[in-house]
């Protein structure tokens, strides 16, 4: 029994309950939110230092031995994702200190925030497929309510689409689980990986590949992969910015995490088919996402399309399927979550000041807020992949892995898409920051940009933007860590043996 593994689940649960107990005082709830997020970040850092020595931590819940009980396992990849969860949670909780309106706070914003984090952490630590389904539902139901909380018409319309497609994904996931259990009689991921690695009989190969496709569809919907992404740009821009930022940083990445886990540990019997398909879909995801983004004038819709395009890069690393490419995917995941959350928070700061997300109505922000402009530029150029920021090293890793394996087409697509990303980031820069304000008689509320509200906004944006710069300048140790995680993923025996050995 290793208590440390339970902390990323227990801390958000405890914080959620504590905020429920403090429901009379909004101020206490807010600070509990920040304290809980800080504790989650601290727990994630401790876990990462434990795991960094190449050990895989395993806990058998209820002390049931390996294939029978539910296993919680943390390898380097899980630990890195937990660290990312902590970083995003803390930054967004600081941002939401003074930006969430009273009605939303009274109807459970802070509670849902932490139950969502509990679901996200749960998916990262579990080693059992059915348990993964349950954690998915925990985070989904919290995200449904967070998305719809407030009850504006646009939110309702966005939530209907989001809920429908995610429930469909859950139904597909559940059906795939049931069939997999029917074939192998186990749902423990390490056990499944062990059985499939021992070789499949010819009658089993077909069904197992079909099941792999079902899992790809189910997680692909959640990750917003190419033909399954339509729910995302229709819903992510409707709730308050803090919620959009949290979703953009964490939720699609949970889908990517599940894809990576399942397609490195379990379904590796026919990589020539499954991983080539992933590579193909990765290219299409990049292209459609970025082309959608180029056409947008609503800042948050534009950023939502960019989420999709970046998911393509993450899938590219999985499709290439080597230690170096998986390491790049992991590095890229951390980079893109931080940069994208920072950009969403910048759009929130602009809204706070000017009262609109429409790029045509924005302008002159560089003149009014040079500090914010610099922070935006850091995150935007990191996303586009300019050296020495984090995105450059993430893309460099992917491109080198692609060239090493001779996949020149996907490399060309990745580079072309980065140019278009740069173009659309420069569009935001030109429209929102550089050009003059279009209508000077529209009142600029100079008071809204003052005081402690503004300070907390700037602190949260600044911490994330500077983090992308630090990740770029200190790319070497960060990439070393990602390489370790990639090597672990490419050698599933380590995971399987750790689970089999049980509690250390």
């Amino acid at each position, binding site marked *: 029994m290793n208590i440390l593994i339970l902390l990323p689940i227990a801390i958000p649960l405890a914080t959620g309950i504590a905020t429920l107990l403090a429901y009379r005082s909004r101020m206490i709830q807010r600070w509990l939110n920040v304290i809980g997020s800080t504790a989650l970040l601290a727990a994630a850092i401790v876990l990462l230092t434990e795991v960094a020595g190449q050990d895989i931590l395993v806990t058998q819940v209820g002390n049931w031995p390996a294939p029978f009980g539910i296993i919680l396992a943390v390898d380097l990849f899980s630990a890195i994702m937990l660290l990312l969860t902590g970083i995003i949670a803390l930054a967004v909780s600081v941002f939401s200190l003074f930006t969430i309106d009273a009605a939303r706070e009274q109807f459970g914003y802070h509670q849902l925030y932490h139950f969502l984090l509990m679901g996200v952490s749960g998916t990262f630590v579990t080693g059992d497929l059915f348990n993964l*389904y349950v954690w998915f539902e925990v985070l989904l139901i919290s995200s*449904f309510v967070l998305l*719809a909380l407030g009850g504006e*018409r646009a939110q309702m*319309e966005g939530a209907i689409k989001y809920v429908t497609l995610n429930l469909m994904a859950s139904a597909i996931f559940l*059906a795939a689980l049931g069939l997999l259990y029917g074939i192998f*009689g186990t749902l423990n991921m390490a056990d499944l990986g062990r059985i499939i690695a021992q070789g499949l009989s010819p009658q089993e190969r077909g069904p197992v590949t079909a099941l792999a496709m079902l899992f790809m569809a189910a997680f692909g919907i959640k990750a917003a992969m190419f033909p399954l992404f339509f729910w995302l*740009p229709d819903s992510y821009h409707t709730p308050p910015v803090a919620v959009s930022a949290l979703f953009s940083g964490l939720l699609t990445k949970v889908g990517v995490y599940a894809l990576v886990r399942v397609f490195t540990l379990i379904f590796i019997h026919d990589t020539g088919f499954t991983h080539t398909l992933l590579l193909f879909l990765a290219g299409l995801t990049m292209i459609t996402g970025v082309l959608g983004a180029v056409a947008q004038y609503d800042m948050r819709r534009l950023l939502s399309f960019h989420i999709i395009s970046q998911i393509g890069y993450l899938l590219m690393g999985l499709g290439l399927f080597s230690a170096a490419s998986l390491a790049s995917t992991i590095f890229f995941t951390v980079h893109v979550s931080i940069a994208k959350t920072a950009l969403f928070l910048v759009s929130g700061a602009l809204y706070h000041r000017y009262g609109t997300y429409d790029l045509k109505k924005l302008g002159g922000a560089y003149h009014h807020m040079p500090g914010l402009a610099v922070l935006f530029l850091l995150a935007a150029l990191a996303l586009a992949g300019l050296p020495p920021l984090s995105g450059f090293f993430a893309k460099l890793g992917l491109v080198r892995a692609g060239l090493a394996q001779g996949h020149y087409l996907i490399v060309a697509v990745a580079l072309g898409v980065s140019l278009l990303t740069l173009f659309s980031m420069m569009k935001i820069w030109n429209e929102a920051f550089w050009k003059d304000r279009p209508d000077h008689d529209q009142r600029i509320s100079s008071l809204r940009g003052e005081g402690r509200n503004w300070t907390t906004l700037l602190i949260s944006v600044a911490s994330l933007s500077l983090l992308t710069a630090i990740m770029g300048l200190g790319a070497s140790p960060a990439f070393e860590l990602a390489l370790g995680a990639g090597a672990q993923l490419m050698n599933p025996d380590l995971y399987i043996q750790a689970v089999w050995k049980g509690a250390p």
Partner: protein
Amino acid sequence: MEVVLAIVVGGLYAAGIYMLLRRSLVKLLIGLAFLSHAANLLIFTAARLNRAAPPVIAPGEQALTAPYADPLPQALILTAIVISFGVTAFALALAYRTYRSVGSDDLDEMKGTEG
């Protein structure tokens, strides 16, 4: 028996997807409910249907004596039913609020968030 259940599962999937493709919000929800029922029944069928003893270790024995029924699929289905119950309740409330704010249950009227 497997064949009958397989046809029922297939029918539920077909009906569910047909309902999802309708424009009415209520039919959409019915379609989602059908999909989750189909998935539950699928787990039930995929985990073998057999007439076997309940999985209880007899007094004085150390292990189960075959043939016994596998209890795990039923535990999975039970969990999935509870989850889909909660989610369906939420979806109904959401649909009602959407109907109140849009004034229609036609999904084609809900294009305000598309650009």
